[in-house]
């Protein structure tokens, strides 16, 4: 029967070609669309994972409630009435027991590196310009192991701040904003103390605008001084050996500590939510593609079954049974699905290879790759093939079953007339 199916296909070249093209384009389009979207997502996730910490432990911002200070002030009193009840945010937020965290992180084999940080909101002044920014204090050597900052330096070395002594590394856009250059001096204050001069020893470009525009790095002890919080840290950035585990590790730590512990996917959940919308779009497009390709196969096979009634009748009289007749037409759909799918997926691959070479100004975050990132995941090709096969098989099923149900006598009777 496969033999006859093949002969059917090659004897009506035009129809076969059209149906083939439908399946071909479906598989091809799927591979390109999925490659494009997933490539973009992979790129973004890659950026998030490689450039930043996988897990952040940060001090909780404590809100003071009406009764929180009762015991501090009136330890003996039974009934306390405030004229103006205490409220607002606790002044300094800090990790309560950083030593406990360090020993836990040292011991944990899943942790690759960690970097305690002190982050302060500061005012920076140069000549007559002032702006607010975030000053991140860390141990430069530890910080380099947790994030990719070492490779994102534009000028200078990140380790230049390791020795301390009031040196800063500034985001390139922030530098431009205040009109400063490397080796100049900035005044930095937390708004309450007198400004301290800091020497600019380098600049960085991460590619995330909020960071390039609003962040400075300095040594941990220098920032602690600015923040008037000696030996305190308010954040610990952590890199784990296997990023797949980041979330479960973060969740397990969150249960046993008062601090907030967040994995990279939670921190960036807004970005990941965009993926969901992208994926929904992709599924919808795929669905339409499948529908169009499937309808093409269905239409043509339906027509062929009607045209081939006489052939079906004589095959039945030769002793071919219902299933063999079904197979005759079903296999044509499968052959079209296989060939259309294979060639479509193959062509899609080459289109993707071409797309990859297209360059555009900066990556999705305004920097980065500089050319399109396309996913070449095996899954895409597997699903592209599967979609082609399933849609053409499903589409040929109904016509094939109709062919199987034809009874030979009616056709033979009418054939004689």
């Amino acid at each position, binding site marked *: 029967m496969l033999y006859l199916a093949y002969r059917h296909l090659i004897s009506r070249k035009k129809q076969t070609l059209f149906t083939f093209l439908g399946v071909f384009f479906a598989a091809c389009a799927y591979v390109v669309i999925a490659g494009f979207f997933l490539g973009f997502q992979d790129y973004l996730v890659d950026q998030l994972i490689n450039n930043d910490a996988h897990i952040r432990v940060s001090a909780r911002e404590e809100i003071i409630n009406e009764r929180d200070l009762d015991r501090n002030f009136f330890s003996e009193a039974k009934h306390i009435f405030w004229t103006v009840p205490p409220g607002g945010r606790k002044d300094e937020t800090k990790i309560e027991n950083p030593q406990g965290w360090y020993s836990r992180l040292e011991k944990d084999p899943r942790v690759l590196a960690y970097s305690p940080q002190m982050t302060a909101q500061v005012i920076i002044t140069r000549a007559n310009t002032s702006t607010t920014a975030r000053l991140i204090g860390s141990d430069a050597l530890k910080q380099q192991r947790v994030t990719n900052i070492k490779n994102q330096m534009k000028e200078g070395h990140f380790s230049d701040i390791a020795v301390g002594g009031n040196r800063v590394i500034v985001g390139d856009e922030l530098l431009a904003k205040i009109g400063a250059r490397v080796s100049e001096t900035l005044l930095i204050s937390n708004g309450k103390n007198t400004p301290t001069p800091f020497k600019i020893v380098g600049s960085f470009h991460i590619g995330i605008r909020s960071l390039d525009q609003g962040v400075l790095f300095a040594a941990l002890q220098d920032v602690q001084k600015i923040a008037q919080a000696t030996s305190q840290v308010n954040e610990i950035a952590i890199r784990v050996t296997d990023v797949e585990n980041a979330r479960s590790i973060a969740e397990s730590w969150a249960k046993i500590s008062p601090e907030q512990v967040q994995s990279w996917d939670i921190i960036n959940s807004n970005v990941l939510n965009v993926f969901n919308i992208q994926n929904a779009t992709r599924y919808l497009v795929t669905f339409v593609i499948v529908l169009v390709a499937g309808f093409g196969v269905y239409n043509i096979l339906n027509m062929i079954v009607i045209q081939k009634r006489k052939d079906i009748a004589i095959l039945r009289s030769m002793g071919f049974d219902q299933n063999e007749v079904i197979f005759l037409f079903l296999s044509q759909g499968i052959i079209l699905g296989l060939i259309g799918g294979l060639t479509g997926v193959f062509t899609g691959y080459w289109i993707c290879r071409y797309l990859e070479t297209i360059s555009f100004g900066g990556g999705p975050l305004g920097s980065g790759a500089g050319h399109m990132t396309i996913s070449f995941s095996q899954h895409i090709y597997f699903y592209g093939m599967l979609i082609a096969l399933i849609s053409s098989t499903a589409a040929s099923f109904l016509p094939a079953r109709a062919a199987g149900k034809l009874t030979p006598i009616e056709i033979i009777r009418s054939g*004689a007339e």
Partner: protein
Amino acid sequence: MSIVAHNIEKLFGDPPTHVLKGINFEIQTGEFVSLTGRSGSGKSTLLYILSSLDKPTRGDVSLSGLSLDQMSETDLHLFRNQKIGFVFQFHFLLPELSALENVLMPARKLKQENEKRPYAIDLLKQFGLQDRINNLPHQLSGGEMQRVAIARALVMSPEFIFADEPTGNLDSANGELVMRIFHDINVKNKTTIVMVTHDQEFAKNASRQIHLADGKVVSV
């Protein structure tokens, strides 16, 4: 007993029309029987019932001692493939296959196309088609197409040939050629042949005539 028809009745439609009203006869192995009667007398209907293509409303048919009613679908298809050859008024050749490929089509059911190939070629040669072996049906004349169809019916060396007005579409020269082929098969291979015809001349070629009138067998 090669073919036994026992109380065959056939009703069609609603309200039912009684086309066959109790047919009884026996046909011996190697007989060549013509089935005659005027148009609409139920000749084709009876032939399809005898040959397993259709089921009687009542009654039973046995071929080579096997009751068709009791055969499973699988066995019925195998029986048709191995033991029965059909020739219709229309040739029903598959348009995308050559003459030889058409003849070999029944052999494909059990993947015997290669063993049967020499015999198929031999049949086509016997029927004067040695130059037409690789022609497609549309490259053949009506008489040639019908001869290819007969070769196809014979390729499995069946016990039975059922033919429904096989000469109906042919001119008299081609018709006589077909009748000579049937005669030869019957004599040489001892194949049992049941042939529907309304041509009295051709009916006389047969060793016996079964005449249908008013849904009954009039003369056996």
